């Protein structure tokens, strides 16, 4: 029992990253109808902003400034969010009227460029992020296992961010305007709301969420140019299982699939990477719109 509990907690740890990333994807898809393949690259970028802010500012730019972990939690999402806005304004916007596949190809290309750029300067095997705060070091005794304090922080922090996002979109005025803008852009615009601006900001917000997940991941995993590429395919599967465009679906299926993967690692490790895709096949066969999605 203790083993299962311990592994479940580790699964949850993976799950919160799935949840945060699939949430960003779901927001962007749900509100903008863009299949954002660059989401993994945004996650990678978030981790690199944290790493560069901590270790390389002086060496590269001659600025004697060090951005610590807490600072990165704010700076990295801002930087990544702004880049997202730039990409939306200058490139994705032009593809808005075309088929989804064009947006997918464009964002895939952006991913390859970003990965290539970072692989040129950083070790592909990964560089550890040295800036984990002292307070979050060490391990917690949970009775059934010793759990690294930082991982516990990452779980709690991500859950708060996920549910706050859900709440804003589903239960506030701002959220209802956003949803209205998606449902019927012309009518919403006629009411005096600036729909293109909302679209841009939403894309920026989705990218910022990925950047934030990247910062949170940096102290746990190595910061590597391919860290996003390894994850993004799984995250797409999570979104498909949850239901494209469903906010709560993305969060819940992210967490649940993290748990499933965690337990697979105990019972049959070689299947750990495939179990999610197996579930995706089942879901597509029996509920093509996803567990939480609505048939259109």
């Amino acid at each position, binding site marked *: 029992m203790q083993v299962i509990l311990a592994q479940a907690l580790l699964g949850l740890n993976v799950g919160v990253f799935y949840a945060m990333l699939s949430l960003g994807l779901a927001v962007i898809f749900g509100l903008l109808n863009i299949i954002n393949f660059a989401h993994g690259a945004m996650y990678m970028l978030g981790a690199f902003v944290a790493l560069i802010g901590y270790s390389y500012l002086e060496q590269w730019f001659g600025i004697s400034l060090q951005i610590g972990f807490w600072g990165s939690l704010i700076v990295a999402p801002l930087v990544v969010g702004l880049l997202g806005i730039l990409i939306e304004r200058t490139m994705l916007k032009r593809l808005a009227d075309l088929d989804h596949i064009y947006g997918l190809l464009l964002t895939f290309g952006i991913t390859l460029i970003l990965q290539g750029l970072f692989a040129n300067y950083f070790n592909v095997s990964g560089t550890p992020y040295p800036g984990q705060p002292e307070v979050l070091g060490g391990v917690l005794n949970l009775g059934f296992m*010793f759990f690294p304090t930082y991982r516990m922080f990452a779980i709690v922090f991500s859950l708060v961010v996920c549910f706050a996002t859900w709440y804003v979109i589903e239960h506030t005025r701002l959220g209802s305007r956003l949803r209205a803008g998606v449902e019927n852009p012309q009518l919403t615009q006629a009411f005096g709301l600036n729909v293109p601006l909302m679209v841009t900001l939403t894309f920026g917000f989705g990218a910022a969420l990925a950047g934030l997940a990247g910062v949170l991941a940096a102290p746990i995993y190595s910061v590597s140019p391919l860290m996003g590429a390894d994850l993004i395919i799984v995250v797409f599967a999570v979104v498909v299982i949850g239901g494209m465009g469903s906010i709560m679906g993305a969060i819940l299926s992210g967490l649940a699939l993290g748990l499933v993967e965690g337990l697979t690692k105990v019972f049959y490790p070689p299947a*750990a990477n495939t179990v999610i895709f197996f579930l995706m096949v089942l879901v597509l066969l029996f509920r093509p719109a996803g567990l939480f999605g609505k048939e259109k």
Partner: protein
Amino acid sequence: MLKNWKTGLTTVAAAAAVSLPMTASAELSDEVLKIGVLSDMSGVYKTLEGPGAVVAAEMAVEDFGGSIMGTPIEIVSADHQNKADIAASTAREWIDDDQVDMLTALDNSSVALAVQGLAEERKVITMNTGAGTTALTEEQCTPYGIHYVYDTHALPVGTATAMVKNGGEKWFFLTADYAFGHSLRDNTGAVVKELGGEVVGSIEHPLSTNDFSSYLLQAQSSGAEVIGLANAGQDTVNAIKQANQFQIVQGGQKLAGMLVFITDVHSMGLDIAQGLQFTTAFVWNQDEEALEWSNRFYERHGAMPTMVQAGVYSAVSNYLKAVDEVGTDDSDAVRAKLGEMELNDFFVKNGKIAPNGSMLHDMFLVEVKSPDESDSEWDLLEVVSRIPAEQAYITMEETKCGLVNK
């Protein structure tokens, strides 16, 4: 006509430029002795071999005097991008059009096998310093292929032997779930059992696993004394990093890396990697001679040499020595000479190139220092013990290479 005239002029100029006796130069096949460094210049193995290997090769040529028997020596280099087809077409162009006489570096096993096969058809010597696979000197051995620095037998077997002898008898493996990981695990496991140790468990994890914590916890509770990492690159780095988060080494278990390079340790940092043990062919500060060369290398390259880069220098120097001694660049003669020579320089002591192409030499079991023990940025490794060549490498009795008469 014009071309002939130009070639003739270059020959005259080249001959005039060096005031060595011109008699022997007739023995070389053309007016330049070319050595090709074919490496990953932009990807995963860049820091390991890449541009540093070119620096090492250039140093070898300069130290040799820049010319041989009155003929200038030239280094050419290219990026194989870790693609066997690109590597093969570059090698083909080098050999057929540019008359390259010897190929070195060739990191990445698929590149290595492709180029070694091609070079065999054209009778060109390859001195592989970067790839790991034992197939180069076993199933796919060739009369001209030399495997110079390490292989996937020497590293894990060396580590396992030394660790079991030092008391680490119970092993648990984290195995990357593909042919390479399985062969690392099987090679190591066999040695552990042979020496009276025990393999208490093994987990096969998918390639490019992000989160090892689940596997590490299983390894932790298995009662093993040593956790063997039968994987490489990012997987190894991630596993070590997360073992540190769960304080596994502090809990008394040892981590054994099957394929770790000094550059991995450098990028992980001592805080995380300390206590890790693995096998290497060379440590830059292992003795005075190595230190002296490595400092020269550092001045030009900005980083201390990996075993692979140091190996390129040694391979190129010994190739030139052999050419000089036999007085021709004919591959059969040079390869025969290399097989007779006893190799001695800062990189290798009493090395022998066996008939299957494997360069048999002692290896070192090293342990990553703690931050307190380290004096400088690159002072990372402590030599624990020396592993004799006959323990580390596949012997001529065991080899599956068809070129060896048993």
